[in-house]
Structure formats: structure tokens, C-alpha cells
């Protein structure tokens, strides 16, 4: 049995005291323990941002890459060794800003892995600029006169892009989050979880309280997760009441399912020292 301590590292996370990332890290570890996945069979992939540091603070294999590019890395990790449980973690800027191209294309690929976005509606690590999820009008270092564009709606985008598991949770509710992550990992195919994450240093609007006063659980409310239109409709709710939980879940073949190349043996375990190209050379003669 995997224990919480198996996932601990010696260094303490250097996030600001009170940062919402702490709760997410706990839920993430909790989910891995609950699912009983050996740490060496987990790959934790991230880009750059406060949230991107997660792989350094959990004892699994990790890759802390470049800003916005974690999903392609994770995709290849999974395709190279489909025996691994692969997580991608990162910020809203990382995933919905600079990484938006990969976000949409990964959603339509249905690789069996889990993507968790620490959505604090701000650029934390670069000390407080607007993020794609910042609300219209918000004043930040890079938008001192207020954000002009409307925020992205990651839930609606993921649904529109073809994701097969789309959920939202809240870092301030570790239980809900852990449950959601467990469901995400169990889902066969790409699972996407947008997580509300209070940033105590640069976002003094969307605080723990702000969320607590607004979030309600879709599952408790009896939401039908199999209906795409209803899921989309729910994704449009914002303001006084904000839904969390699973918006949409549907089963369809994973990307790996359609690759006979890795049906029997993961790529990484295939022998490469006896490849025979003589037939290939004949083709050119």
C-alpha cells in the first residue's frame, strides 16, 4: 500500500504561506494514495509558474519543463510508456494563456491522463499580471487600466474541444478536490480538472471566502454529466453561484486504444537492437 509519506520530499514547498497550492498538493498526494499507485509509476509534468513547481514537492518522477508546454511532454510520456499514470499540473497562464494551443489539441486527443490547472486567475510567479481567467476590468500590473477582454471559460472550451472528462474543483475544499482527482484518474481518457486556487499575494478578489460563498456541487445538484448541451449550459454559470464537480463525462476510445504499435508492449519496453531494415531497403531498389 502506498502511503502519504512515500510521496513526501525533504524540502518544503516555497509557496507563500496560505497559498491555495498547498491544498491542491495535499489532494493530489491523497488521490495517489487512495488510488494506490506506486510513486515510480507516476509522472508529474509541469510548465512554469508557482503551480509548476509541484513536481519538485512530490516524490514521483517529474518534469518541470517550459512555460505552457507541459501537455505535449505529458502526451509523449504516456505514449512512450502507457503503463505510467501521467499528471500534468500548471497554472492558468501556463495552460490557458501561452499554452492554449496545446490545451485545445490535447482535449481532442483523449490520451488517458489527467490535467489539473491551478487556476488563481493571475500570474503568480511573475508577481501579478493579468491571466486569461482574470475577470474583465481587473487591474493588475500589466493592465493598470483594467482588463479589456472577457475571460476564457476553460470548462466551455474543453467541452467544445472534445474532452471526455471535464470537471472543476476548489483548492479550499480538499475533500472535493481529492474525490474529483480520483474520478479523473479513473476515467479512461483525457481528464481535465480546473481548480480554483486562491493566490494570497496577488489576487485579493478571488479569495477563499469569495469561492466558499459561491461554489456549489453539481453532483449534489443532480447534474446530468452525459449531456453535452447541459454541460455547456452549466459552464456558462458565473457570479453568485458557481458550479464545481464533474460537468461532462463520456466514454470513447482513447488515443492509445487506436495504436496497435503499443497494444502489447509499451514503446519503452520494445527491444531496439534487432530491428531489421533489409525489407525497407529492398523497397527502394
Amino acid at each position, binding site marked *: 500500500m502506498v502511503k502519504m509519506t*512515500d510521496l*513526501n*520530499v*525533504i*524540502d518544503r514547498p516555497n509557496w507563500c504561506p496560505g497559498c491555495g497550492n498547498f491544498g491542491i498538493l495535499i489532494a493530489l498526494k491523497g488521490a495517489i494514495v487512495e488510488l494506490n499507485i*506506486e*510513486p*515510480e*509509476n*507516476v*509522472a*508529474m*509534468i509541469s510548465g*512554469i509558474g508557482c503551480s509548476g*513547481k509541484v*513536481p*519538485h514537492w512530490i*516524490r*514521483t*518522477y*517529474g*518534469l*518541470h*519543463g*517550459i512555460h505552457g*508546454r507541459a*501537455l*505535449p*511532454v*505529458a*502526451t*509523449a*510520456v504516456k*505514449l*512512450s*510508456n502507457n*503503463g*505510467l499514470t501521467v499528471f500534468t499540473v500548471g497554472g492558468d497562464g501556463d495552460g490557458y494563456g501561452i499554452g492554449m*494551443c*496545446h490545451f*485545445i*489539441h490535447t482535449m481532442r486527443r483523449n490520451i488517458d491522463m489527467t490535467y489539473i490547472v491551478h487556476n488563481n486567475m493571475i500570474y503568480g510567479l511573475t508577481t501579478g499580471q493579468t491571466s486569461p481567467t482574470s475577470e474583465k476590468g481587473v487591474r493588475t500590473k500589466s493592465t493598470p487600466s483594467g482588463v479589456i477582454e472577457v475571460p476564457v471559460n476553460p470548462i466551455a472550451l474543453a467541452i467544445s474541444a472534445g474532452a471526455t472528462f471535464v470537471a472543476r474543483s476548489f483548492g479550499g475544499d480538499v475533500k472535493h478536490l481529492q474525490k474529483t482527482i480520483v474520478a479523473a484518474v479513473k476515467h479512461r481518457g483525457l481528464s481535465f480538472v480546473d481548480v480554483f486556487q486562491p493566490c494570497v499575494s496577488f489576487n485579493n478578489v478571488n479569495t477563499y471566502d469569495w469561492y466558499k460563498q459561491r461554489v456549489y456541487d453539481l453532483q449534489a445538484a443532480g447534474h446530468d454529466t452525459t449531456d453535452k448541451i447541459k454541460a455547456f449550459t452549466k459552464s456558462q454559470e458565473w457570479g453568485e453561484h458557481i458550479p464545481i464537480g464533474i460537468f461532462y463525462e463520456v466514454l470513447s476510445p482513447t488515443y492509445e486504444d487506436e*495504436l*496497435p*504499435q*503499443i497494444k502489447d508492449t509499451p*514503446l*519503452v519496453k*520494445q527491444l*531496439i*537492437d534487432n*530491428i*531489421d*531494415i*533489409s525489407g*525497407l*531497403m529492398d523497397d*527502394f*531498389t
Partner: protein
Amino acid sequence: MAINRLTWKIGGKAGEGIMATGMIFSQSCSRGGLHVYDISEYPSLIKGGHNNLQVRVEDREIFSQVKGVNILIALNKETILLHKGELVNGAGIIYDSSEVIEPKEINDNIRLYPIPFNNIIKEIGVQGIMKNNVALGASIALIDYDFGIVGEVIKDNFKRKGDKIIDENTRAAKAGYDYIKNNFKNDFEYKLEKTGKPGRMVLTGNDAICMGAINAGCKFYAAYPMTPASSILHFMAAQERRFNIVVKHTEDEISAINMAIGAGFTGVRAMTGTSGGGFCLMTEGYGLAGMLEVPVVIILSMRPGPSTGLPTWSEQGDLKFALNASQGDFPRPVLVPGDIEESFYLTQVAFNIAEKYQTPVIVLSDKNLAENHKSTDKFDPKKVTIDRGSYADPADLAASLDTTFFKRYKYTENGISPRTIPGMKKGIYTASSDEHDEEGSISEDIDVRIKMMQKRARKMDTLAKELKQPELVGSQDTDANADADITIIAAGSTKGPIKEAMILLEKEGIKVNFLQIVYLNPFPSEKVAEVLGSAKKTAVVENNFSGQLADIIKEKTGKDVDKRVLKYDGRPFYPEEIFTAIKEVVTHG
């Protein structure tokens, strides 16, 4: 009468099957034991623009095109107007008899072979698109070559399309063949004869790169289409199920290199390929691989820039870019194959270097090498042994603690640290793009920074020591001339025309040595400095505007070459151009 020594050319509109027809001709020659080298020109559009393909055939190994066309198949009038200047005395033009050619349009010494394509096609009842087969057959008759071989090649090429297509193509070619035999005297000056020797492969540099990659155990190829690297993607995709490779056409080049990094990190040999614009988008990932010490092979196939430039032409304008891409100092091995064989073997070497030194490796090619065909002896798949580098010792792993990360970035004398991959018990670590300590943990410590920079740099020193300095050769790969008049230094696809030019120069009594740079980095400074110090004269031959190789040589050795022979119009060198330029340097300085 010239036997087994001619240049055959076909031209017409894009989309008319010029390339396919040329390929049949090349393969037919090769199967007859002859050597071929073909080169195609096409604009960046799909249909209607002018395409042409030129095949040179001889009964010795040949390395490039030469000036002078002996037989021109003109599928339209434009082809005649564009290429008549290239025809030598006694050359023939095969063209549609419905085109009117004014006597003044064409030199007296050129023979005309008008063919009623449409009639023939109607008669034998095949599609209009088969016109080029008729023309092909006609050319075979003209040069008196064995039609049987052509028939076989057609059969093999259209195998997958079914008997009907094979039959139609063959009949079209045969009809053209017969038309010439029946309507013209057999007095064409240029002939081909099969040699009875076994046929060779006819393939491009990109084909060779793919074969090399597959042979090296590449299991993951991610790329976004970009001329002239697209055909690597097509090749690898076509072979994905045969060789169990995951091939991914990604959303962009950023994704492509990051996927390759993900695969490399997981322990799979991975490659990506692109051209300049796509490589721009890969530069950040390139540095990432350098920092993570993850093996990745990047094929950078050059075309003329800046920006979109001449997308379907060739240039060697990214040498300095490849050497310096991405921020900061880190090991950046860059290998430059000069021909198709080297494309095969060096790709395999690139995988070995990437894994042994845990670093990204660039293989620098260009459109000329990537897309032109050459008849080539079968490769030796056993020549380059797979070297997967240093994985962590199981004993070390077993001994390591359960609470710490594995020392994946251990300071070692040769700079190479033991590697673990996901799934290995107790090998756990995080590969970090931030500067990190031996365990991969982020560190801003002065001491760690200095040691880690030095550790990474030492890998390059170790590699440099492992490599042999390049050898100076004389014409036709003989030993170098002790008293050469000039030494040519070059890298990449200019090798072919240089070899041909050396033969021409030798005939004029000019002794030339050649130093091919295969490793742009680690650069063989020692050898190059020695050559520059001892040669009577030196020249670089480069397909770019500024003489980038000459700049690199100067940076590394402090020495100028005497002459920069440069060409940057997108076209490859003709041996004759190099001949003239070098002769000029030798005779007039």
C-alpha cells in the same frame, strides 16, 4: 556516340506527375546497374506552376547534377522555353506535336521529337494524365534502353494501385516507345545500356535519415509538416505499424519538440524534424532538452530564408543559427551529413550521441540533400552499434533512500550522469528547467550553478575527445595531395558538386584537396587550423549569402579562408561553377 553518360530532364506543370515519372526513369536506370543522381525543382504551389526533374546517369558513381541536358521531355511549351538553353549539341526534345516550334526558337543542333500524345492516348484508351508515361517510353526508345526494366519498375511502383493501373501505365509507356521506334531513325547520339550489375537503391537524404532512425531504434517521431522535412514525417508515418513507431503530426513545432523531449525523458529514442521557421519555434525546447539532459534528435532541413523565403528551394543559411539557438551556454552537438550514406549513418550516430551524452543533437541537412535522389548501395545496418549510454546502476538505485531524489545529475568527470527513467524503482527525480543540484532540485546556489554549468560543458569536451579529426582527401577520395594547389573546406550537400568539380579540376592539372566538416560542433578546430596553416590556398564552398562556415572557421581558428565561393539563389552548385571559381582562385588568387 555517348554511351551511359547522359542527363535526362522532364518538365511541365505542377501536378502533372513529373516527379513520379522521373522516379520511374531513375529506378529503371539503377536497376540496369547504372548510377543516377536526380534533382527536382518545384515552386511553392500545388498545380500549374513549372516543375522539372533532371536525372543524370552514368556508369560510375556520380554525386551531383552537371550542366548540359541531353534529352528533354517537355510536357508543355514553357518547358522548352525555360530549358532550351541547357541543351547540348545533339540533344533531343520530346514534346507534344500539337505545339508549334518556330525554327528560330531552337538551336540547329537540337533534334526534335514531336509526339502526338493525345492521339496515342486516345488510341490505347488511357487517361490524359498518362501523357508523361508516353513521353517516358519515347525517351527510353530514343536512348535505346531496355524497355523490360521500365515495365518492371512500373509494375513495382503501382503494385498497390492494382493491375488495371499497372497495365495502363505500361501500355502508355510502350506506346510512346513504339512511336519513336516506328517513326524516327535510331541515330540519337546518347544511349544507355544496362551493365548486368545488380541494381542499387534510389533514394533521397530524407529516406536515408528515416532508415537510419528506424535502424537506430527511433520509436517516436513527432513533427509538424514543413518543406523540406515533411517527407520524413510521411516516411515515418508510412512505416509506423511495420516498425512499431508512434508518429505524431502535432499541432505545431513547439509541441513536436516537447513531445520528443517527453519521449526521451521516458527512455524512448525520439526524433523531430523541421526547417528553419519550425526550428525557430523549437529553440526554446532545444534549450530545455539541454538543461534537462534529455536525449532528442532534431533534423533541421534547411531552405532559403529569411522567413518563408523560397520554401521549395535549398540553402545552407542556418549554420550559425543551429550552433547558437536558445539562450545560454549548453552542449549543442551539430552533425552535418554531406550525402545520402552519411544521412543514414550519421542519424544513427546522432541517436547514440544524444543518449550517451544526454543532450539534444541536431542533424543539419538541406533541401538538396533531403529531396534529391541518388542510386546508392545498400547500407550496412550493423555498422553503427546502438549505444544507449549510462543508465543508473541497479545497485546504486537499491542503495538510495526512499525519501530523497536520485542523483540524476551527479557531478562526474566526463560530465555524464547516470540516467533513470519513469518506472524505475528508487530512480525517482524531477527533471527541471531551472538550474538544479545533483538531485534535480531547484538551486540558486553559486557553487551548484558553477559546478552544474561545468558538468554540462564537460560532456562536450568528452565528446570532442571521442571524435576523430576529419581527414583531408584528394580527388575521388584518394589520399590528400601533398602539394595541392588549393584545399576546399565545406559541410553538407555541397560535398557532391565539390567531388565532381575536383575531377574536372584534376583534369586541368589543378590539384585539389577537400576537407569535409561533418561535426560543426564539436568543431575540429585542430585539423582545420592545421589545414589552413599548411594549404597553399583555401576556399569554402557554401550555399548561403554570407559564408557562415567561413565565419565559423574564423571564430574557431582565427584564420580566413582565401576565398568564399557562395551561391544563394536557392539552387545547388553545378560542379562547373565550383570548377570555375576554384580555377580562378588558383590561377589569379
